[in-house]
């Protein structure tokens, strides 16, 4: 044994060491356990040196690396600044192009939907003169432009053509001190005259102090000036203090917000309805109109539906009576025989006997209230106009020119609307209902 150990001493040690390590591996593999002691010692011995190396590297090679990196920073910074400037210029150019495209699309859309015949024009220059607010547009008489035509944008009126040349026209802006146009307020229907002031805001003149105009209320063209068709937006009221005689109503023109570049010249204007105040800026959610109750009215029926008022029904009744008795209201010499109003039925279909008005039915909970019988009135009495939102049934038909002026031709009536709740229609005739249709009015867009 001693001979073996002395002769094969190296080999024996090798085998012992190898066997020991094999046992170590076998233990780890079989028990799936680690030998934490050896690992902890090794890691504890190595990692501080590794951290030291990292520290040295950071403060030596990292410093050198940063130095070489910083060498190129100045030139790179200049290059980036140059690129940044070019990108800014390009960005501004693209923004301008996009804005132009948006305006052109808005103009095209407005042209398509507006009943007025218009031609698009671009502002190509300003007029001379210290206080004059005039611009040149690139459309002239060869495009059908004439002096006195209105110039608008989808946002509102801009001015009017004062001179038309073959290839260009001179447009007086509404801010010009000599400009004037008839306007009407949207909510309270206050009429006045829009005047330019030479600066950004316009004045609505000739409005009595007693009239009520709200701040923020919209003004629309009234059509009285025979230049601007009725119903084009003008602007919002910014201030409305009382003056000596008239209110000092200042309006911010909506058509000139953000400058004037593309405009529409109204070649052939069509009057439109002034949109409802709620439709323009409701400020709160509103429900859609209620559906028609019962069966739909037949073609040509006089039944105006639930959206018509008693005034509309009475007007229909009176018109029918006039037709039956072959009487034309507003004609005939004084003292001629009027229609027999005693045969006119009431709204609930009761014909008064011997001119005695039937008493209204007693109200009871859950019962439909009956309507009072209207009193006959003289023919020249003007009927009160009901609010537009309540009297105008929704219609998709194009608006008639001066659609609301026909109310003056109808037989007048005075109705106590407080005691006339919605009652069923009396009868149906072939006469079409005289109800003002609501046209699709151009609502002011972004400046509201």
């Amino acid at each position, binding site marked *: 044994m001693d001979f073996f150990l002395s002769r094969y001493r190296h080999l024996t040690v090798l085998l012992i*060491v190898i066997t020991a390590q094999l046992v*170590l*591996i076998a233990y780890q593999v079989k028990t799936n356990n680690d030998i934490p002691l050896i690992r902890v010692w*090794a*890691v504890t*011995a*190595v990692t501080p040196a590794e951290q030291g190396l990292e520290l040295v590297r950071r403060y030596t090679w990292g410093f050198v690396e940063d130095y070489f990196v910083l060498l190129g920073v100045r030139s790179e910074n200049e290059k980036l600044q140059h690129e940044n400037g070019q990108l800014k210029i390009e960005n501004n150019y693209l923004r301008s192009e996009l804005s132009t495209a948006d305006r052109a699309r808005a103009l095209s859309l407005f042209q398509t939907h507006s009943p007025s015949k218009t031609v698009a024009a671009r502002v190509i220059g300003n007029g001379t003169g210290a206080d004059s607010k005039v611009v040149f547009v690139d459309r002239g008489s060869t495009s059908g432009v004439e002096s006195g035509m209105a110039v608008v944008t989808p946002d509102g009126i801009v001015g009017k053509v004062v001179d038309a040349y073959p290839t260009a026209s001179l447009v007086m802006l509404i801010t010009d001190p000599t400009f004037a146009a008839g306007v009407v307020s949207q909510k309270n229907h206050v009429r006045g005259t829009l005047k330019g002031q030479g600066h950004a805001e316009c004045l609505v003149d000739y409005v009595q102090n007693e009239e009520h105009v709200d701040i923020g209320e919209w003004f629309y063209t009234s059509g009285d000036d025979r230049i601007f068709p009725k119903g084009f937006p003008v602007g919002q009221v910014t201030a409305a203090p009382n003056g000596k005689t008239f209110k000092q109503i200042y309006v911010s023109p909506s058509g000139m917000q953000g400058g004037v570049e593309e405009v529409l010249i109204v070649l052939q204007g069509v009057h439109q309805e002034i949109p409802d105040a709620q439709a323009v800026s409701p400020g709160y959610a509103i429900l859609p109109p209620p559906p028609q109750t019962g069966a739909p009215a037949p073609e040509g029926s006089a039944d105006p539906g639930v959206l018509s008022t008693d005034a509309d029904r009475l007007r229909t009744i009176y018109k029918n009576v006039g037709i039956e008795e072959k009487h034309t209201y507003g004609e005939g010499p004084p003292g001629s025989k009027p229609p027999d109003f005693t045969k006119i039925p009431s709204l609930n279909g009761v014909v008064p006997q011997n001119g005695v008005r039937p008493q209204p039915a007693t109200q009871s909970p859950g019962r439909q209230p009956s309507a009072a019988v209207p009193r006959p009135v003289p023919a020249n009495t003007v009927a009160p106009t009901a609010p537009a939102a309540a009297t105008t049934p929704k219609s998709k038909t194009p608006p008639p020119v001066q659609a609301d002026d026909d109310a003056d031709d109808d037989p007048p009536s005075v109705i106590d609307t407080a005691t006339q709740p919605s009652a069923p229609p009396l009868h149906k005739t072939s006469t079409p209902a005289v109800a003002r249709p609501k046209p699709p009015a151009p609502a002011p867009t972004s400046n509201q």
Partner: protein
Amino acid sequence: MTEYTERLLTEAPRKETASRFRFVWLLLIPMVAVLSQVYVPRFVPFLSYLELPLLITVHFALSSGGPIPALFYGMFIGLVQDSLSHQPIGMYGIVKTLVGYFAASVSMRFDVQNPVVTFILAFFFYFFHQFFYWVLSRALLGEILTFDVQQTVIFGLLNAAVALPLFRVLDKLKVTS
């Protein structure tokens, strides 16, 4: 057999003069080698082929007095390498134990100061190290590793090329008694 080859096989010049490392270097050199293996490839990835702990083991074995210190030294370096790996402790230990033993045994028969012999021995032990580790991984751990002979040969040549200057530098650290 030529005179040169006979001298390579028979003479043992290393044994004429005893030159040994100081104890500090014996601890510090393997530490640096292991550190360089775990730290340098972070920044210079292509240096991951460099097996400095193996070269240190071979150099110590070639310059040591006998196989027993060499195998223990190889075991020590191998276990440190195992500790920093995710493998069971002992894989590198066994391989480097064998490398130390055989390198020390070979040094008795060859003139290890000769660069050619050094180059060949470094290449051979690198190949042996990689091959034996692959065998142990398959046999003991059941791992299916691929042994790329071509890549191993190339890396062996590179390690052998590094071994020549490295051994010169390490020889300078030794003290002659």
